[in-house]
């Protein structure tokens, strides 16, 4: 059940916390238990899931212009490798989920996060090269500089790489990619395509 959408802006009262739950784009103020909007958009009422014992419907603000995506722990990102060092590879996060970011965020793949098995035997230089496009998952917000990324899953790793000859290489195993021009084989932590 949905009621007529009205446009609201941040700070506008959406209802009382006693008879509504605050969904996304809304918040409940404890001091006067009132629910306010925190974004510009349409006020929508969602009926509570029949299972839940809390019978309050949820009010949320939808259809607003959201700010650019920001990486969060657990989100799958697509990043371009910029530097490869002995123990880490740094990469610029270009997409969070299917959305491209407005400005890049810096991420780091540490040696122990490259693959699930034999993590002590990982050679960074045989896993990534600068310019590679990798699919990775955000482990944590990381440190002051970078987000910590992991490629330790089959479907994670290099999804696109150029050979030294400058051609887009074809993956031939989960550790190898081949240059269509020269036939030369280069080593990578290759991602299995999910489909």
């Amino acid at each position, binding site marked *: 059940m949905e009621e007529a959408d009205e446009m609201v802006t941040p700070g506008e009262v959406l209802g009382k916390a006693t008879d509504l739950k605050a969904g996304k784009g809304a918040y409940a103020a404890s001091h006067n238990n009132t629910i306010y909007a925190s974004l510009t958009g349409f006020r929508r009422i969602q009926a509570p899931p029949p299972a839940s014992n809390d019978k309050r419907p949820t009010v949320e603000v939808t259809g607003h*212009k959201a700010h650019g995506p920001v990486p969060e722990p657990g989100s799958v990102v697509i990043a371009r490798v910029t530097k490869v060092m002995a123990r880490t590879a740094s990469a610029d996060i270009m997409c969070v989920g299917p959305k491209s970011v407005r400005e890049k965020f810096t991420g780091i793949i540490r040696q122990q996060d490259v693959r699930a098995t034999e993590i002590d035997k990982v050679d960074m230089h045989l896993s990534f090269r600068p310019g590679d496009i990798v699919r990775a998952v955000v482990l944590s917000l990381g440190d002051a500089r970078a987000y910590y990324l992991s490629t330790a899953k089959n479907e994670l790793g290099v999804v696109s790489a150029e050979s030294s000859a400058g051609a887009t290489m074809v993956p031939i195993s989960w550790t190898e990619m081949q240059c269509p021009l020269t036939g030369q084989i280069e080593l990578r932590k290759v991602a299995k395509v999910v489909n």
Partner: protein
Amino acid sequence: MAAKPGSAPVTYSPNLGQKTRPPIFKDNDLDWVRPDGRGFHQCRPAFFRTGAVNSASGSAYAELGSTKVIVSVFGPRESKKAMMYSDTGRLNCNVSYTTFATPVRGQGSDHKEFSSMLLKALEGAIMLETFPKTTVDVFALVLESGGSDLPVVISCASLALADAGIMMYDLVAAVSVSCLGKNLVIDPVLEEESYQDGSLMLTCMPSRYEVTQLTFTGEWSTPDINEAMQLCLDACSKLGKVMRTCLKEAASASQE
């Protein structure tokens, strides 16, 4: 070619007449009219528009009388390398003037404290915890300084933040009052500010009816304070309405 590199001749502006304070303030204030003919408790008509700058995540343009400002919001984006890790988001503000904003060329530089005052007025209204570790930058440029610059910048900035889709507890509206002799005049113009005896700036979240920032200068009696604050609060709630309609128009326009 005619260019004279290096040589910077001393120049002066021919129209800089001695600004002297009109005598009328001494006693019979009441027959005095404001430079722009407004009533003492009447604000200048406010014009707002969001989405002024495409390169920014959000932006707004504000025009009150001859006071014209643009505010751009960038982010949430990667914090500068220098900064240490933090679980909550950061707000970073900067206010600057164009060289032609002020009557005397390049005078706008003497507003260094504005950046920190903008920050203080806004930070209480933004849900910093919604963008951990990243920074939201709020940059303001005063195109023309026509008085009440800081309040206009603050209101405009909160619109720009809303336009950027940054989560906020409420908008922030700001108004200032000048004390001239026995009179309280709201939303003063540059000329009035130049000879004011005192000033009061109030920034608040109109819907939550909370003050985020309040500053006085000059000498104030309690009744004056009560009156001035009430004036500002009323003006802010009016201003808030104008800001909300601006946001709604923009949003419904983007729906098409």
